[in-house]
């Protein structure tokens, strides 16, 4: 996705290279090609391109990847509902996608 870049420095993605066993799952599943295997371990080559989908973390066998765990799609309506629910204490109704 070279034509589409989002806000730099925003995405929360952490890789624990010590824990990584180099299986390559994260390299395969990432829809933005954020990882590469270097010296038999995963390396994050484009942290700002991450959209926090969580596919890499779901498929890492040793839990070496941490991604912002707030799930759901990133639509504004959902986030506003979340903020409101924090104030009102009501549960969030999902969005429409």
């Amino acid at each position, binding site marked *: *996705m070279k*034509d*589409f*870049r*989002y*806000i730099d420095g*925003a*995405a*929360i993605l952490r890789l624990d290279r010590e824990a990584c066993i180099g299986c390559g*799952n994260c390299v*395969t*599943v*990432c*829809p*933005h*090609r954020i990882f590469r295997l270097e010296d038999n371990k995963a390396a994050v080559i484009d942290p700002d*391109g*991450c*959209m*926090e*989908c*969580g*596919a*890499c973390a*779901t*498929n890492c*066998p040793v839990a070496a990847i941490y991604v*912002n765990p*707030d*799930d*759901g*799609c*990133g*639509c*504004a*309506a*959902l*986030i*506003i509902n979340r903020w409101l629910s924090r104030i009102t204490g009501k549960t969030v109704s*999902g*969005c*429409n*996608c």
Partner: protein
Amino acid sequence: MPLVSTTLTWRDHLGTIGARSGYYRSNYKVIPGLYGIGRPGLDSPVLVTANYKLSFDALRQVLPGIDAWILVVDTRGINVWCAAGKKTFSTDEVAYQVKSTRLAEIVRHRELILPQLAAVGVAAGRLRKACGFNGIFGPIQAKDIPTYLHRNRQADEAMRTVTFNTGERAVLIPVEICLLWKPFLAATAVLFLLSGIGPEVYSLSAAGTRGIQALIASLLAVLAGAVLTPLLLPWIPSRQFWLKGALVGGLTAMTAMAALLPTTWTADLPAAIALVLWAASVASYLAMNFTGSTPYTSLSGVGLEMRRGLAFQLGGTTLALGLWIWSAFA
């Protein structure tokens, strides 16, 4: 085992229009289970997909001449990516369908080809233990599956990279708009009410003429925020959606007003500014909401830009409405 065709009928196409416009988008389902394509046998590949009919159709449509099984998992009629994000397209659900269709008795191999975007919800490595099959991730798009199969299960970088081209952005527009009609009607009612306030306390004729102008501004905002911004996305300056929307909304309103309401523009500057500001604020919100439909915006990023965006939108609409009422007296 139901066999399905690889060509779509006019009913399928009609249904696609319905689903795309949001008319029955939330439950356009295929019954979960195993389907055959061509003349599938013991060694035919098993392709897994969601039970959203458009996902299923996209898959079967690319398979003419290929013998394969399609395992449809129950994602409550939601597409692959959103379902994986919501964890309805999950490891357990795939394992459940494998068992309930007795797939192990139907094919000889033990391989499931999953859509790459299902990886958000499916941990392929856990499937073997859960149902005896190995999960591997195929390409993102159904259209690449034939190549993927021919190349012996090899997907290149392009097949593994998500795209967001003009066509992919355009199909999202109808849904964005269809979700809007309720808030739009409410906003229009309020605008007509406010438009009547004036020197004569309340004037119905002013509510009519000025209300129409406000309505036009709202329509322009929808055009700018929900149509133009998605379409022109890569070419609009700024990475933040609220700013993209505000820019396009302001420009659209200014251009259109210069063309449609030239007299308002010159004779009543405060009113004109109010309308432009209104369009910019509303378009800004609509554009910001579009982040939920793109395949590249992180939730952390959306949270960041929303603080600024909401401040602009709330400030902008308040100022616009204030100016609008004030301009009736000026």
